[in-house]
C-alpha cells in the first residue's frame, strides 16, 4: 500500500476528476482552499439573504388582508428562517461557525442579496416578492441543487420544494388583485415596475464581469452562468406575467423567434454594486431591524442556551 503523502498536483487532479465524473464533494474530502473559500462566501451570503429576507415581508404580517393571508405570510417567513438555519449548517461543514457568520452579519461585514434592500410600500409587493424574487431564487437554487458540494446541494433540494409554495402564494395573491378593482390592478403593475430590475440584478453580475466564472464552473460550484440563469428566469416569468395582463417595464422586451428566447434590456449593474456595498434604499433600515431583533431575542436565546440538566434542581 502506498502511504506517501500525495502532492498538490495529485490531489487536485483527483478532485477535479471526481467532479468531472459528476460525483459530489463531501465534508472531510480534500479540496482546494479557493473552493472552500468560494463556497463559504456563497453559502454564507445565501444564508444571510434568507435571514434578512424575512424583514421586508415580515413587516406586512400585522397588516395582511385577512386571516388566511396572515397565516400564509407567517408560514412563509418561518420557512425563510428555516432556510437560513439549513444554510448556516451547510457552511459550518466547511469550517466556519454559525456564531461567526451571525456576528459578521450584525457587524455589517457580511453581504446579502441586493433585493432585500428595496422597500415594500404596498401589499402587492408581498405578492411580487413571491412571484419574482422567489421565482428567480428557485431558478438559481435548482442549479445549486446540481452543484458539486454535497451538503449545499442537499439543502437546496429541501429549500426548492418549499419555495414553490412561496411562488404560488405570490401568484395567487396578485392574480386576485389583477382581477379586482382598477386600483388593485394598478397596484400590482406598480409593484412589478419596482421589482423588475432589482430581481434581474439579483441573479448576479453579467458573465463578462465575473472573474472567477471559469474556475467556479470547472469545480461545479456553478453549473450555469449568471447570464444563463437570467435568461432562463426571463423566459419563464414573462409569459406568466403577460398571461394575466401584467407587463414588465421594458420597451425592448420581445420574443425572438430565431433564438427562442425573450430579448430584454439589461439592468443597471452599477446600481447592483452600490446596493450590495450598502448603499441601497433600505440597507440601513434592514440592518437596524436585524440588530434590534437580535437584542430583543437575547433573553430567549440565553434561556435556551442553558441545558436541561443545568436548569433542573438535582434529585436529592
Amino acid at each position, binding site marked *: *500500500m502506498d502511504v506517501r503523502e500525495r502532492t498538490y498536483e495529485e490531489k487536485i487532479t483527483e478532485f477535479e476528476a471526481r467532479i468531472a465524473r459528476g460525483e459530489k464533494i*463531501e465534508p*472531510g*474530502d*480534500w479540496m482546494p482552499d479557493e473552493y472552500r473559500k468560494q463556497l463559504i462566501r456563497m453559502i454564507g451570503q445565501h444564508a444571510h439573504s434568507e435571514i434578512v429576507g424575512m424583514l421586508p415581508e415580515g413587516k406586512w404580517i400585522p397588516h395582511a388582508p385577512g386571516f388566511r393571508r396572515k397565516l400564509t405570510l407567517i408560514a412563509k417567513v*418561518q*420557512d425563510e428562517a*428555516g432556510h437560513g*438555519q*439549513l444554510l448556516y*449548517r451547510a457552511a*459550518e461543514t466547511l469550517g466556519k*461557525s*454559525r*456564531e461567526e457568520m*451571525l*456576528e459578521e452579519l450584525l457587524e455589517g461585514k457580511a453581504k446579502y442579496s441586493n433585493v432585500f434592500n428595496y422597500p415594500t410600500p404596498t401589499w402587492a409587493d408581498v405578492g411580487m416578492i413571491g412571484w419574482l424574487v422567489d421565482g428567480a431564487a428557485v431558478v438559481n437554487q435548482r442549479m445549486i441543487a446540481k452543484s458539486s458540494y454535497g451538503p449545499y446541494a*442537499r*439543502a437546496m433540494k*429541501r429549500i426548492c420544494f*418549499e419555495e414553490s409554495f412561496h411562488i404560488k402564494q405570490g401568484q395567487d395573491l396578485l392574480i386576485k388583485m389583477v382581477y379586482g378593482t382598477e386600483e388593485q390592478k394598478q397596484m400590482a403593475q406598480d409593484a412589478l415596475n419596482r421589482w423588475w430590475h432589482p430581481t434581474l440584478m439579483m441573479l448576479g453580475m453579467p458573465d463578462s464581469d465575473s472573474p472567477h466564472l471559469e474556475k467556479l464552473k470547472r469545480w461545479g460550484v456553478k453549473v450555469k452562468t449568471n447570464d444563463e440563469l437570467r435568461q432562463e428566469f426571463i423566459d419563464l416569468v414573462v409569459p406568466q406575467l403577460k398571461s394575466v395582463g401584467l407587463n414588465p417595464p421594458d420597451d425592448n422586451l420581445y420574443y425572438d423567434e430565431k433564438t427562442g428566447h425573450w430579448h430584454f434590456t439589461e439592468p443597471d449593474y452599477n446600481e447592483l454594486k452600490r446596493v450590495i456595498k450598502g448603499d441601497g434604499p433600505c440597507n440601513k433600515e434592514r440592518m437596524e431591524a436585524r440588530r434590534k431583533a437580535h437584542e430583543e431575542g*437575547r433573553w430567549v*436565546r*440565553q434561556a*435556551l*442556551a*442553558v*441545558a*436541561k*440538566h443545568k436548569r433542573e434542581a438535582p434529585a436529592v
Partner: protein
Amino acid sequence: MNDTQLPIWEVFHQEKRGASHVHVGAVHASDEEMALQMAKEQFARRQECVSLWVVREEHVVKTNYDVPFFFARNTDKEYREVYGFPAPLKGKHRE
C-alpha cells in the same frame, strides 16, 4: 455567554411506520428536548413524520472518505452475489 452557537445534533426522520429513519440534516440546540423541538420545526413542518431521532454530532462515528480501501472489494466475492449461482432450473413452465 455564547448564545448563537449551541451544540449540533444530527436529525433522522421517519416518514411512516415501517420506513427507515433517514438522515435529513442537523439542528443547533442546548439539550435533547430543544433538539427534538427544533428538529420538528425544521424537518417535520410539512413532510409527514411519525418519529424523529436526534444524535449529538460528535457521537456519530464516521468512516473517512480518504480511506477508500476500507470499502474496496479486493478479492473475488462473487459467492456473495446472486449472479454467482447461475445454475438454471429445468423449467416445467416451458411445457
